[in-house]
């Protein structure tokens, strides 16, 4: 019996050694240690032994059992690890395959520019004012110091609907409306929106385009405040090292009027094709609100003063990204639109 046990042990250890898979090893466990296995059989046969032999044999059986179990467990650890490794091997994927596309839409480039400007002024305590695109001649022209027959009306040929109603030619009527509504109170607003002028559409002209204007009215608003505000704007939009320069100009609704140039963001001022070799790029028009405009909106122009500025997001986007044709903004070619996906921060 003892010999049989030793034989079984040798046999089992041998099979454990040669088991190559978890399954084979489990089979060995069942075969040798299971309820129907030979070791159990030996145990069952113990009844036939004389009583004094039983404890020794019992201990021997347990010893064999223990040794086989130990060996099995040790082997099992190895085989399981091996099995896992094989599984991982099998599960390896081609990580170079493309991912499942996440949805990525993006704003129109003009929205991108407008919101960047909006956010800057919002952070400086401005509100955003909006108004109708179909406007009264009064708000579009007269309230802005452009009475009927004023020569400056020639500058902007308009789309009239009736003699008194037209598609607004600039966003300035929003300023006039806001001033009228505020009834003499201080104002700090930005007015973005679509505007329309009689122009044949080509690479640089569009009968519909966008404008964004700003207006500040308050006590003792000075031209230096305008210059400071525009300087903050230029640095934020076009880079910290931008310089600005003001040139005298003319707009009927401001006096004095200026045009603002920024030092060229491409060449830094040395002269290149973007700045037409001047080192400066014209960005916007501005000025101190004309007293007539203030008075017409019910403001006491002796007590309150203000400044206003206005610019074209199309022009800014075209300059910033070297876009060659203004019509791109309105044809919505996805090969154009999707280029304005990523952030530039």
């Amino acid at each position, binding site marked *: 019996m003892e010999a049989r046990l030793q034989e079984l042990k040798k046999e089992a250890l041998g099979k454990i050694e040669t088991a190559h898979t978890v399954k084979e090893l489990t089979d060995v466990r069942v075969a040798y240690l299971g309820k129907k296995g030979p070791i159990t059989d030996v145990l069952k046969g113990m009844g036939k032994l004389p009583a004094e032999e039983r404890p020794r044999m019992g201990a021997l059986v347990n010893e064999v059992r223990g040794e086989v179990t130990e060996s099995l467990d040790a082997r099992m650890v190895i085989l399981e690890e091996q099995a896992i490794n094989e599984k991982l091997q099998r599960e390896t994927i081609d990580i170079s395959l*493309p991912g499942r*596309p996440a*949805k*990525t*839409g*993006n*704003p129109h480039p003009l*929205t991108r520019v407008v*919101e960047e400007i909006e956010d800057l002024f*919002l952070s400086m*305590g*401005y*509100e*955003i004012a*909006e108004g*109708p*695109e*179909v406007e*009264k001649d009064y708000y579009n022209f007269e309230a802005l110091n452009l009475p009927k027959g004023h*020569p*400056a009306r020639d500058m902007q040929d308009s*789309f*009239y*609907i009736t003699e008194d*109603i037209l*598609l607004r030619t600039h966003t300035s009527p929003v300023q006039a409306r806001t001033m009228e509504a505020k009834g003499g109170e*201080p104002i*700090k607003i930005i007015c973005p929106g*679509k505007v*329309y002028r009689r122009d*044949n559409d080509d690479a640089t002209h569009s*009968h*519909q385009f966008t404008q964004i204007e700003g207006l500040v009215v*308050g006590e*003792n*608003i*000075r*031209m*230096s*405040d305008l*210059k*400071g505000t525009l*300087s903050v704007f230029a640095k934020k939009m076009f880079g910290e090292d931008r310089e600005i*320069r*003001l*040139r*005298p*100009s*003319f707009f009927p609704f401001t*006096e*004095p009027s200026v*045009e603002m140039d920024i030092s060229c963001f491409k060449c830094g001022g040395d002269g290149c094709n973007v700045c037409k070799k001047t080192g400066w790029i014209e960005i916007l028009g501005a000025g*101190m609100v*004309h*007293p007539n405009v203030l008075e017409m909106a019910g403001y006491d122009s002796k007590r309150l003063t203000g400044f206003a500025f206005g610019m074209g997001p199309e022009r800014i986007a075209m300059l910033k990204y070297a876009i060659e044709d203004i019509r791109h903004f*309105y044809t*919505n*070619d*996805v090969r154009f*639109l999707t280029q304005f996906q990523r952030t530039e921060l």
Partner: protein
Amino acid sequence: MLVSTKWLKEYVNTQQLPPAQLGEKITRAGIEVDAVIDRSEDLANLVVGYVTECSKHPEADKLSICQVDVGAGEIDQIICGAPNIAKGQSVIVARPGALLPGGMKIKKAKLRGEESNGMICSLQELGIESKLVPKSYVEGIYVLPEPVEPGTDVLSYLDLDDTVLELGLTPNRADAMSMLGVAYEVGAILEEEVTLPKMDYKESTDRAESMLTLEVDAPEANPLYVAKVVRNIEVKESPVWLQQRLMAAGVRPHNNVVDVTNYVLMEYGQPLHAFDYDSLGTGNITVRQAKEGEKITTLDDTERTLSPHHLVITNGKDPVALAGVMGGANSEVSDKTTTVVIESAYFSADSIRRTSKDHNLRSDASSRYEKGVDPNRVIPAAERAAQLLSELAGGEVLGGSLVFDELDKQERIVKVSPDFINSRLGMKIPLEDMLDILSRLKFNTEAANNQLIIQVPTRRQDIQIEEDVVEEIARLYGYDEIPATLPRTDATLGGLSPYQAKRRIVRHFLEGAGLLQATTYSLSSEQSATQFALEPTETTRLLMPMSEERSTLRQSLLPHLLESLAYNTARRTDSVALYETGAVFMKGQDELLDEQEHLAIVMTGLWLDHGWQGEKKPVDFFVAKGIVEGLAEKLGFELSFERGELDGLHPGRTAFIMLDGTRIGVIGELHPAEQKKRDLKSTIAVELNLATLLTLETDALIYTPVPRYPSISRDVALVLSKRVEAQSIEQVIRKAGAKLLKDVRVFDLYEGEGMEEGKKSLAFSLTYFDPEKTLTDEEVNAAHDKVINALTESGAELR
């Protein structure tokens, strides 16, 4: 305005500044110099030649063989193809080695066997535009109007050694529409004095009144009229210097009389007109409003029918000029003219604007009248013209002038305090600097009691109020000197309105959902203006559209957005999803339109394209519906959908988007016919009234504690008629499920093989939940049985 710097130097010292620098200074002071044009660019080695012999080329009809004296006794043979070449002419010769525009270099050549040592030039070959070349020289070479020493340098003789500044004038600076005006501006910038043209000529003892009478019957439109008479003139070509100054200024030379009027126009900014005295026939000039239906043939050979608001110059009977706009053909100065009447007048801007608009006639004269001429230059300009005519046409100027004068020529007084100027600018400019600037501008100023009393010359009509003076001081002091500060207003909060903030949320949601933002035109054709509009109104057309395609304000965003879609698919981008927010324009209650902000979405092609893992999802109704539902959820209210039909959309695949029982939008697949018409494949379109959504106030967000008890779900699969809509079943379920039923969700739809004709299988997953306790199986079963009963009662068959 084109300003010859060479000509300008006659009135003001430009301190030998290179023209580009002068231009920069002018720009920085307020008049933008758009271009600096070097008239001698690409020109070199051009000399005056004298044609001593000229004969036909034996081998070529159109060529002449010329012997040309090119100076220093040198005679060169030059072949010339111009029809007007002749012996005895002084001409422009480009000798071998000369340069002409476009990089052309002149070399010796043989033309049909004959040697040619250079080229005899036309003005166009010197880079002068055809429209500026005197008519008689357009087709050939330019012949100098007077004999010139052969070998003379052409560039200096023709004043081509000149640089022209092109000024981009704003409407307020009408004063700079003349050489003298520009001289005053440059004088103020450079701190130089202005020299006015010398006026010394002799007048005859015979008086103008002896030949001419003057009557003005329209003093309002014509408050000042001056006429001078010059007789015994010889009409001929102007001297070279005059022709070249006109060409530099962008005016074509004609003859000495016309050229003088144009020259004075450019010099003084005062329009002049010359009448042929004999053609007037009456010795009378009468200015009056035209009679209804009266006719005049103007210098451009166009017959024009007049009405009483047009001002005319007549000979006492018939119109001889459209006042201030264009002369009449019947009194035009010709080669035979010996006596001329020079008109210098002040016509009101309104009158000229009306006439020029009615007849669609814009001239150098009318554009100056429209912006307002200087009342104090009307008389000097007439005298200047008389002087030039006596000099250049050998004319005899009759004594005195005929004058009608009711014009106010007073200089305006503007009072402003130095403190006002400094407070508006945010600067501390010393008083003496202000006074210095005003004196440079030639504004007579008195400083008293902290007040500047400024007498503004009439040439500066734009200086009217204190702020105008602020600008004058600032621009000449230098805008660079203005410090940069920020407004010291009370701190304002600013920020987006709820509407604006929600609009941004909508945008970000849609972009996150994978849509690209588009922008299209608001103007469309009349025909497509109302297509897809839920509640179209009467359309709004422009009075004068530029094209039918852009004639009418849109009432839906979809037509243009679908065009953008088709634009992309035509360029082989098959999968496109766009959205746009923008105004549509409905007829409203008052004169303004009812502008509503709408949102539209269009999509075609694949919504998800992930083929290698077997995922390819084409765009369909439900993709769009999901986006709309998600949007509503984001904004915090519930939308429902109601089957509907709209022209252009698939009748079985269209739903109205409902908010509290009101239609606020539509979602649908494009009708196959519409798709075909637009050259699109299967396309889904959505449009909704965004303003309605964004105006709604959203409920406050209320937190409910995270459930402490689990929920339990049960599935039910039903066989239904295909016509039964899921929403109606869901309503039955919700009603029967009562309080314990927390959620109902469709999880399967089967319509394929094995189903009875006209039937479908629809499976729902129901979630039961009690916030107070863990539900027992019995409780859930009881609730679920009620649902099942209700479903069976409603005619659904359990599967």
